[in-house]
């Protein structure tokens, strides 16, 4: 009984991540690549994403401090972060990156600061939610992350 509760919980967590726009279809693509040979693939990729995105965000933060109004530098850094977000299906973060780049294009430094704060918040929330999701998945056991049939 507990086992299927955890399964339901995992499914529910995942559904809300999609419904609330935190994740998009790309995340499903990543989960699809997981199988018996690579049973923790999704979690590993997500973990690498957070390492990478944290580093990129630190770069952006430093650029905003040390290179005030260097919009093109800020944009280049944000482009990298956006690419990383799209690879993982981090939809809300990706949208905020786009928003930042548009504001950057308008050369609105204060707007960029605000956007960046939003981005940091989204980053933190996504990390928390995905950590919960993976925790429940691990508890629920292998059946939940079982390989999907490979249709060609």
């Amino acid at each position, binding site marked *: 009984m507990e086992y299927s509760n955890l399964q339901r919980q995992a499914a529910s967590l995942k559904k809300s991540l999609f419904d609330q726009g935190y994740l998009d279809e790309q995340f499903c*693509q*990543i989960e699809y*690549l997981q199988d018996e040979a690579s049973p923790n693939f999704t979690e590993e990729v997500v973990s690498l994403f957070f390492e*990478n995105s944290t580093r990129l965000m630190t770069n952006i933060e430093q650029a905003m401090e040390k290179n005030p109004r260097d919009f093109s530098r800020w944009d280049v850094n944000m*482009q990298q972060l956006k*690419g*990383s977000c799209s690879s993982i299906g981090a939809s809300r973060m990706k949208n905020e990156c786009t928003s930042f780049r548009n504001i950057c294009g308008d050369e609105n430094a204060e707007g960029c600061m605000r956007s960046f704060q939003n981005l940091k918040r989204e980053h933190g929330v996504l990390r928390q939610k995905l950590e919960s999701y993976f925790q429940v998945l691990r508890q629920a056991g292998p059946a939940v992350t079982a390989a999907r049939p490979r249709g060609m």
Partner: protein
Amino acid sequence: MAVVASETPFHVLAVDDSLPDRKLIERLLKTSSFQVTTVDSGSKALQFLGIHDDDASTVSVHAHQLDVAVNLIITDYCMPGMTGYDLLKKIKESSSLRDIPVVIMSSENIPSRINRCLEEGADEFFLKPVQLSDMSKLKPHILKSRCREHYEQEQQHQQSDSNSNDCSSPTNMSSSSDSSRKRKAEDNEEILPQKNRPRHS
């Protein structure tokens, strides 16, 4: 997905400075039955391919000096130092490597960028995030490159009055090809991937 009747899988060299992206492309390729080597920069890619960065245009390394034949190179466009475009140029300048198909990946959909790569000889351009369905576009380029090689070898053999080779026998990449360096954009069936994907900015 049908696998060509050869004993060893095709070997793809994947180049991307982003670690999560490298992990993803590796998995996509392995799932599609490719053997994969990943590197995090263009200069490491050139090192692996056996040519030196500074004299790529003058030094011709015979393919047999490569430990493992590389059948296709897939590279990210935006990388610090040597971009994917720079890497593409170096590959096309090398007499031993120019026939290896090159695919460029980018998260930015910029037509001028795409055209520039195709004009420089890239065989395909993938918009990131790369999908499993994109993997099926790789083998045709490898096979096309091989057939061209075999055809040219056959031509050379015919000229010297010996028997022609069987096209299906696999060989390593040869440096004796005289094929033209630049592939025309028209040779590519799909330049932009068709996806229902929201376009940003």
